[in-house]
């Protein structure tokens, strides 16, 4: 393979260019060499077209829902389950939705619960964030309450409903208390693990640039911890919603208005299985919708910006 050594050394060697043209946009010599390397080593990433997104992301869940509905209808039509008080038909549940909509109750149910859930979540955010910062940065606080905070995450928040009712009575404050106890540990823990996972290199780089103390926390630590924090928020919302539903089911009272949990409880009391189904579907729908509309896009944006989201 020695035959390849024919071309001479007269090519565009960088040495001839060195130091000659200061910062000039020379496209030959070193500048051209560098531009070539840059072009070779970077690949353009373009956005996936809309049609592709529809086929890849929207179609599969639609098919899944359709299959569930089909199986459900088949169970009724083939008389596998005969008792409408055990399993109502999809049409019965559909009528339940239609009536609630026409009588203007449907949005009321949703709004009662969603407004409670989101407001409670915002409180949890306002408490969980400084708490997480404190646990992450202050050794004494971490040793004191770090393990308790992690432990609380595994405590089902239903357990807080009885004491909350006794302390605060049957009112909205009790609902918020249960949401807080469910969501604050998740949010705080998310922030703590986000901060713990900040690469030490970023902190060193920040310090040499003069980002220490609060400037370091603001410019380096917080943005670096953002993915972990967002994961905590997402989980915090799931916990908020679950806690709220538990509270609404157990502690229903006319003063509280009818939310989705109360709707479920009312359905049980009235032995109306289609109302129970209506409530369960709505609870599921709201939980998924909030995640899809708020948290998933936020998380995707952050991860994509950092090149952490690998396209399948």
């Amino acid at each position, binding site marked *: 393979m020695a035959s390849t050594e024919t071309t001479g050394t007269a090519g565009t060697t960088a040495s001839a260019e060195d130091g000659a043209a200061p*910062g000039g946009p020379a496209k030959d010599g070193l500048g051209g060499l560098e531009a070539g390397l840059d072009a070779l080593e970077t690949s353009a990433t373009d956005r996936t077209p809309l049609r592709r997104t529809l086929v890849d992301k929207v179609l599969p869940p639609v098919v899944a829902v359709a299959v569930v509905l089909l199986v459900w209808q088949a169970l009724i039509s083939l008389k596998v389950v005969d008792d409408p008080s055990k399993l109502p038909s999809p049409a019965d549940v559909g009528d339940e939705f239609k009536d609630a909509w026409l009588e203007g109750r449907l949005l009321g149910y949703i709004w009662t619960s969603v407004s409670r859930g989101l407001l409670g979540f915002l409180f949890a955010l306002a408490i969980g964030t400084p708490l997480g910062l404190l646990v992450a940065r202050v050794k004494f606080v971490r040793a004191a309450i770090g393990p308790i905070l992690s432990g609380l995450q595994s405590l089902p928040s239903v357990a807080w409903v009885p004491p909350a009712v006794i302390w605060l009575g049957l009112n909205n404050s009790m609902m918020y208390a249960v949401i807080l106890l469910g969501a604050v540990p998740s949010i705080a823990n998310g922030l703590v693990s986000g901060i713990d996972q900040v690469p030490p290199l970023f902190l060193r780089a920040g310090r040499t640039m003069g980002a220490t103390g609060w400037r370091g926390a603001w410019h380096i630590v917080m943005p670096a911890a953002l993915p972990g924090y967002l994961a905590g928020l997402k989980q915090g919302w799931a916990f908020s919603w679950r806690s709220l539903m538990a509270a609404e089911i157990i502690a229903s009272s006319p003063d509280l208005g009818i939310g989705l949990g109360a709707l479920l409880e009312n359905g049980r009391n009235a032995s109306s299985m289609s109302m129970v189904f209506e409530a369960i579907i709505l609870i599921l729908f709201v939980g998924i919708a909030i995640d899809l509309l708020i948290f998933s896009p936020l998380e995707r944006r952050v991860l994509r910006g950092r090149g952490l989201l690998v396209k399948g």
Partner: protein
Amino acid sequence: MATTILKAEGAASVEYAARIEHVSKSFAGPAGQQLVLDDITLDVAPGEFVTLLGASGCGKSTLLNLVAGLDRPTAGGITTDGRPSLMFQEHALFPWLTAGKNIELALKLRGVPKNERRGRAGELLELVRLTGSYGKRVHELSGGMRQRVALARALAQDSRLLLMDEPFAALDAITRDVLHDELTRIWAETGVSVLFVTHNVREAVRLAQRVVLLSSRPGRVAREWRVDIPQPRRIEDAPVAELSLEITEVLRGEIRRHGQH
């Protein structure tokens, strides 16, 4: 022109960019206090390019951390002309910012007013020949481009002394070669002093005006060479190879001593 804002003008008041005097550093190890650096004395003159060369365990990165002010020496003193900037083997660019914004953050942290930052970041990107990459995210850049942005960010701190901790060690040979040329050019244009740590003998000789060899465990200044080969040099040049060979022999001798027990 980018060069005018970057030239360390008025630096003549100090006769050194860094002065390291009798510096020792020990860490608490499993066998008690372990001496990592032993009585290092070294000056870097304004505008000088010095490479610190040594095998693993010579404490060259530790010394760089001390000069950067990230750690304190156990004994001795270090004075620098202003706060030095530091470049790492990993680019250490912040992935939540674009290339341009990374540079602007460095400008912001040293108090450059908001309306000047964008322009200066543009000039610095031009200096490292990445004019079109202002809005690029870190993950969209190649390894060589990342290190050039990191260099631009380090220069944005407007330090008189640039500390480099094996900044090209993780790059492929072709890119590294190009970045050697690039660094030599930028050093000449800006007049910044450079203290460059490496374990690559040829890289040390290719770049530096002075090569300082550290012995290992503990790190001591073993020998110094003045490199009088005129720039621009290439790593394949005969004089570079010749001096590299000589230094390598001394370095191997230093390493051999550790095998004799």
